[in-house]
């Protein structure tokens, strides 16, 4: 929890707040660095950046440990960082290096760390829903206390897999928290066009689970709602759906011409920068001192520089890796 009660006094936990800030800042800096490296031609393929949505991943992951699972999306860097995947290995993965989290064989859209409970970013929109149900089924079948959080976007909300997944999680009362990151656009198509309801959370009613809408830029709001949903799942009361409504600062992918939104839209939403709001709030209420936040900024900058150097200086995979890990034992 962010706050504790001692002798009737509510106190804020500084360590927790610092962790939240550090993870949000690390995600932002990572994404900004990736944008630059991508533009400079250092990163092959294509990347989908999470900047602007940091408060969702961090506000939710604050309640999870390594025994809890998450499934992610094509916009997964933020989930990985919040779940504790090494940024060195992530950066090396984006470069396609052998030292990458996936030995350079997955890239941006498939970063995973099963040991950390991170069941993978996913290149298929809506692909993670059934996987999350499966992870929830494992937890329930083996009598473990963990939960699974299934991140999906507003675009995925229209995939049949998500509906099937929510129905299954509901009828089996699985410890799964569905988190719809509604960043207003499925690629370039606005959710006001592609969704039959204007609040994805409404769909929870159809699956007999609670549905909640929360602003994605306010980490304190996300944190509180996530705590209730995660605790509920841990108590065995079943799945729930949180819709976090926010904005991605970058395009659908890097290089997206962004013709579907106006500079005014962008300015309006950028005014809701989760990091700026967090900083203002904790300074205003004197939860944290400015130099403590500045120190986090410096540490994060060092981590990103170090991760980039690590990625740049690492070797590419050997030819033999081409046929490795197709199977546990190649025929």
């Amino acid at each position, binding site marked *: 929890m962010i706050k504790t009660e001692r002798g009737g006094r509510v106190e804020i936990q500084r360590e927790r707040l610092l962790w939240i800030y550090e993870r949000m800042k690390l995600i932002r800096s990572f994404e900004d660095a990736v944008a630059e490296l991508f533009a400079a031609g250092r990163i092959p393929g294509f990347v989908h950046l999470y900047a602007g949505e940091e408060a969702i991943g961090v506000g939710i992951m604050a309640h999870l440990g390594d025994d809890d699972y998450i499934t992610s999306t094509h916009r997964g860097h933020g989930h990985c960082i919040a779940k504790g995947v090494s940024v060195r290995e992530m950066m090396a993965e984006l470069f396609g290096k052998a030292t990458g989290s996936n030995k350079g064989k997955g890239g941006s859209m498939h970063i995973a760390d099963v040991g950390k409970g991170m069941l993978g970013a996913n290149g298929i929109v809506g692909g993670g829903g059934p996987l999350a149900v499966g992870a929830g089924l494992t937890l329930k079948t083996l009598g473990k206390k963990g939960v699974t959080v299934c991140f999906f976007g507003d675009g995925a909300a229209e995939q049949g897999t998500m509906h099937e997944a929510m129905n299954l999680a509901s009828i089996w009362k699985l410890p799964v928290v569905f988190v719809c990151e509604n960043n207003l656009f499925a690629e370039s198509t606005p959710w006001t066009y592609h969704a039959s309801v*204007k*609040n994805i*959370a409404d769909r929870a009613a159809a699956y007999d689970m609670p*549905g*909640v809408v929360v602003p994605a830029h306010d980490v*304190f*709001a996300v944190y509180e709602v996530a705590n*209730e949903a995660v605790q509920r799942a841990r108590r065995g009361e079943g799945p729930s759906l949180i819709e976090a409504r926010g904005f991605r600062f970058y395009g659908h992918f890097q290089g997206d011409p962004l013709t579907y939104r106006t500079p005014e839209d962008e300015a*309006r939403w950028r005014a809701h920068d989760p990091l700026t709001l967090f900083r203002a709030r904790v300074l205003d*209420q004197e939860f944290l001192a400015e130099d403590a936040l500045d120190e986090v900024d410096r540490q994060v900058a060092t981590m990103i520089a170090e991760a980039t150097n690590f990625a740049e200086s690492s070797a590419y995979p050997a030819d033999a890796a081409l046929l490795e890990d197709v199977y546990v034992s190649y025929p």
Partner: protein
Amino acid sequence: MKLACDGSVALIVNPQAGKDVRRLVAPAPIVTDIDKIGILRRILAALDALAVSRVWVMPDLGGLAERALAGRRWRFEVRWLAIPGLASADDTQAATRDAVRQGVRVIVALGGDGTQRLVAKEAAGVPMLAISTGTNNAFPVMIDATLAGMAAGWVAKGQVEVARVTRFHPRLEVAIDGQAADSALVDVAATRDLVTGSRAIYDWRMWREAVILTPQIPVVGLGSLALALVGAMADPPPAVHVRFGDGGRQVLAPIAPGMVAAVPIAETSPVFWGETVALQPAAGCLAFDGEREQVVSPRQRVTVHEVAEGARVLDVRRCFQAASAPPG
């Protein structure tokens, strides 16, 4: 009050009402978009049948109103109210301000206590008809939207006399360090939360004190406490000031839909019309009509002042009586 006679109605819908954390912590209903669109369609159908000339609609970001209007030719003119479009409380307030500026004769608003508070803050004496689509609905009325639409239509067309079909709902005005800060229609609570979090208040253990208007009928929310504490009195005070904590009695109260808690009440005192109550200085949140809105520090002085003539609300039953009576 003299109103501009434009013969029009404003329609304000909070697309976010009925979707907060109380669905997770209590079995509060999800009020779906489909429910709200249906309510809007029934209101519009009634306004159309009454041949209202113009309807000012709040263009909510989710497009609920657009969808309600689509697919049918309406006899009235549709105009859109100006909003910043941030999908926040600002939209509701800005839309209400614009409606008043445009000279509408009645404002129909869809939402719970939280939404209605925002509308009432800006309604400037224009009669409002609050339809419950929220979580706690101590202020809005449970009524079929068709009836609401007809009542609003008669007011807009001047077929009923506003003074006869409206009444005043009291208001709690909040000042911080002597400066007017905000207002509420149902209750003002001081909590021990250090952040506004997800806004809705549901954890009664965090409540420090509250000023609560005494409701006329049983309600869910803090109002239920007022009713339990003073409802049995022959002449109940219009509001109560409650300090939460041990040492007094426990009151079993429905503080959210499906959430009945034994709330410990340390102290209760009546609050009369025109009275001002000073809250204890402390770090925490101020919640208005069930939503944590503002963080305050122990250095700030918070007072709550009770005003009898707060929001002007439309009484649907009286509208129907007046509409059926011959003019005179």
